[in-house]
C-alpha cells in the first residue's frame, strides 16, 4: 500500500520504459479526450514509466489482460491507494474521525479476498437484483417524465436520469436511506477525488471530512443490521456471519464502503456515456429505437468505446516482465483499459463506434479474472432499462453541443460533467 509517490522520482530500471519529455501526449488526469495519446502509447511505447505518477503505464490489450490474469505476480493491493499522498490535515481529520477503511474487495488479495468475495457474491446474486427490475424501470420512467415535462425542452441526462437511478437501486439493495442520494453522491465524489484525484493538501480537507462521515454510515448500517435484521444485502451478510461465514463486522462495513460507491458511481457514468455516445451516432441510435433487442450489444460497445474506468492499478510482488519491459519488484502499474479497448490487435477499427461489432464483449472495462466487477450484470441491466425507456419515451432526443462536454480530472474514472439534451415538441 505504499503510496505511488515514493517511486515517483525516476524509473528504477529504465530499459526502454523511460518516458520521453512529451509522454506521447499522455496526461494522467486529463479525461476529455485521452484516446489520441493512448493510440500513440500503444504504437510507440506500450509500457512507459511515467515519473509524474510513479507508475508503469501499460496500454496494449494482451499485456493488460495478462497482468489482470496473473494475480499472483501482480497484486491489486495498490488499487485503492491515494495517487497523491494524503496531506497532514487530511490525515489528522481521518485519524481523529476513526477512519479505518481501505478496501471492500478490489484491493484485497487472496486468500482474504477469496474468502470475503465468496460470502459477498452469495448475497449479490442475479436473483436478488432481478427482482428489482420493475422498480428500476418505474424509477427510470418517473425521472424521464419529469425531465420531459420541462417546457424549455432541455435536460441533462447525467443529472436528470443517470444520477438518481443506480443510486436509488444500490441504496435499496443495501438497505440504506433512499432519501439520501445527494449525501451518498457527495461522499462518492470525495472518495473518487481523494483516491484517484490530483488534489493539493488544502483541497483534500473537505473530502477528508466526507470520508469520515461516509465510513461512519457504513459502520452504522452494520450495527442496524445486527439489531434489527432486514431484507437487504447488509442484513444478509450479517446473517451469513451469524450462520458461521467467516466475515467480520469491519469487513462487512468495508464491503458497504465499496458498494455504496462502486455500486452507483460507475453506473451513473455508464448511463451518461451510453446516451452521449449513442446520440452522437444518430443512425445507430435510430437502429435501437426501431429494434430495442439491439440494446444489450450496444451497451457492450459503449463499455468498450467509452468505459467508466479507463485505468486501474496493480503492483508487482516480484521482478516481472510486461510486454518485454522489466518491472522490478514493488513496481506499480497503471493498466489503461480505455486504451486496450481500442487496440487494433484485438478490435478492428477500434476507434470506430459500431454497435454491430461482434466481439465488443471482449472489452476490459470490468477488469478480468478474480477481481472482475461483481456488479457487471446489475450495471448492464440498469443501462439497458434506461436505453429502452428513452427509446420508447423520447426517441427523438438530441445531444446539445457535445464538443463542449467536459470530463472530470481523474486518473481512473472518466466521467462527463453533463450530457445536455434537447427534443422537439
Amino acid at each position, binding site marked *: 500500500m505504499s503510496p505511488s509517490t515514493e517511486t515517483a522520482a525516476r524509473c528504477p530500471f529504465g530499459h526502454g520504459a523511460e518516458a520521453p519529455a512529451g509522454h506521447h501526449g499522455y496526461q494522467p488526469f486529463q479525461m476529455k479526450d485521452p484516446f489520441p495519446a493512448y493510440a500513440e502509447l500503444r504504437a510507440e511505447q506500450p509500457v512507459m514509466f511515467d515519473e509524474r505518477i510513479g507508475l508503469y503505464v501499460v496500454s496494449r490489450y494482451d499485456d493488460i489482460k495478462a497482468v*489482470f*490474469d496473473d494475480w499472483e505476480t501482480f497484486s491489486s493491493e495498490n488499487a485503492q491507494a491515494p495517487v497523491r499522498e494524503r496531506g497532514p490535515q487530511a490525515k489528522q481529520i481521518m485519524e481523529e474521525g476513526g477512519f479505518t477503511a481501505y478496501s471492500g474487495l478490489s484491493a484485497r488479495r487472496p486468500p482474504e479476498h477469496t474468502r470475503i468475495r*465468496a460470502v459477498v*457474491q*452469495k448475497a449479490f*446474486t*442475479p*436473483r436478488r437484483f*432481478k427482482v428489482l427490475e420493475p422498480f428500476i424501470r418505474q424509477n427510470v420512467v418517473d425521472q424521464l417524465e419529469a425531465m420531459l415535462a420541462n417546457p424549455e425542452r432541455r435536460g441533462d441526462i447525467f443529472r436528470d436520469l443517470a444520477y438518481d437511478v443506480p443510486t436509488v437501486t444500490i441504496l435499496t439493495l443495501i438497505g440504506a436511506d433512499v432519501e439520501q442520494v445527494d449525501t451518498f453522491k457527495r461522499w462518492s465524489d470525495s472518495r473518487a477525488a481523494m483516491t484517484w484525484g490530483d488534489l493539493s493538501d488544502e483541497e483534500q480537507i473537505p473530502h477528508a471530512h466526507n470520508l469520515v462521515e461516509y465510513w461512519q454510515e457504513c459502520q452504522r448500517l452494520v450495527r442496524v443490521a445486527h439489531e434489527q435484521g432486514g431484507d437487504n444485502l447488509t442484513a444478509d451478510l450479517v446473517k451469513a456471519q451469524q450462520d458461521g461465514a467467516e466475515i467480520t463486522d469491519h469487513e462487512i462495513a468495508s464491503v458497504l464502503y465499496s458498494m455504496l460507491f462502486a455500486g452507483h458511481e460507475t453506473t451513473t457514468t455508464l448511463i451518461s456515456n451510453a446516451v452521449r455516445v449513442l446520440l452522437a451516432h444518430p443512425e445507430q441510435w435510430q437502429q435501437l429505437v426501431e429494434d430495442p433487442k439491439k440494446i*444489450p*450489444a450496444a451497451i*457492450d460497445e459503449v463499455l468498450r468505446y467509452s468505459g467508466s474506468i479507463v485505468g486501474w492499478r496493480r503492483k508487482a510482488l516480484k521482478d516481472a516482465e510486461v510486454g518485454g519491459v522489466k518491472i522490478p519488484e514493488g513496481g506499480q502499474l497503471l493498466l489503461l483499459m480505455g486504451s486496450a479497448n481500442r487496440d487494433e490487435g484485438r478490435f478492428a477499427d477500434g476507434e470506430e463506434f459500431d454497435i454491430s461489432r461482434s466481439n465488443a*464483449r*471482449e472489452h476490459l472495462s*470490468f477488469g*478480468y*479474472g*478474480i*477481481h*472482475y*466487477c*461483481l456488479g*457487471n*450484470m446489475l450495471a448492464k441491466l440498469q443501462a439497458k432499462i434506461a436505453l429502452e425507456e428513452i427509446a420508447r419515451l423520447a426517441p427523438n432526443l438530441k445531444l446539445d453541443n457535445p464538443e463542449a462536454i467536459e470530463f472530470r480530472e481523474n486518473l481512473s474514472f472518466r466521467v462527463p460533467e453533463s450530457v445536455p439534451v434537447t427534443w422537439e415538441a
Partner: protein
Amino acid sequence: MPTVHFTDAEGVVRDIEGNAGDSVMETAVRNGVPGIVAECGGSLSCATCHVFVREDCLDQLPEMDEMEDEMLYGTAVDREDNSRLSCQLKLSEDSDLYVTTPETQV
C-alpha cells in the same frame, strides 16, 4: 486425453481435445470455440459460459455448488435441468463430455 464435443445452437459439432485440470470453459476459449464468452475469466461473476450438458454425461461432473446455482439464474438463455457454467467443469484424463452452447450468452 480428455475430449469435449461442443455442439452450437445451429447443430455444428466441434470435437476438442483438452487437458486434464483445465475447465470446459478454458478448453473452449483456448481453441476458439464460439458460443462461450466467459467475460469474467472464471470468477463466477458473469454467467456467459453457460452450457447444456447431455444428460448421460451429467454424472461425470462435479456437483454444482451454491454460487454456480445462483449464477445460473443470470444466464441470457434460461437455465434448464442440465445447465452448468462451463468454468466450473474441470476435465479429468478420461472425460468425454457432450455439451451444447446456447443461442446467445448476451
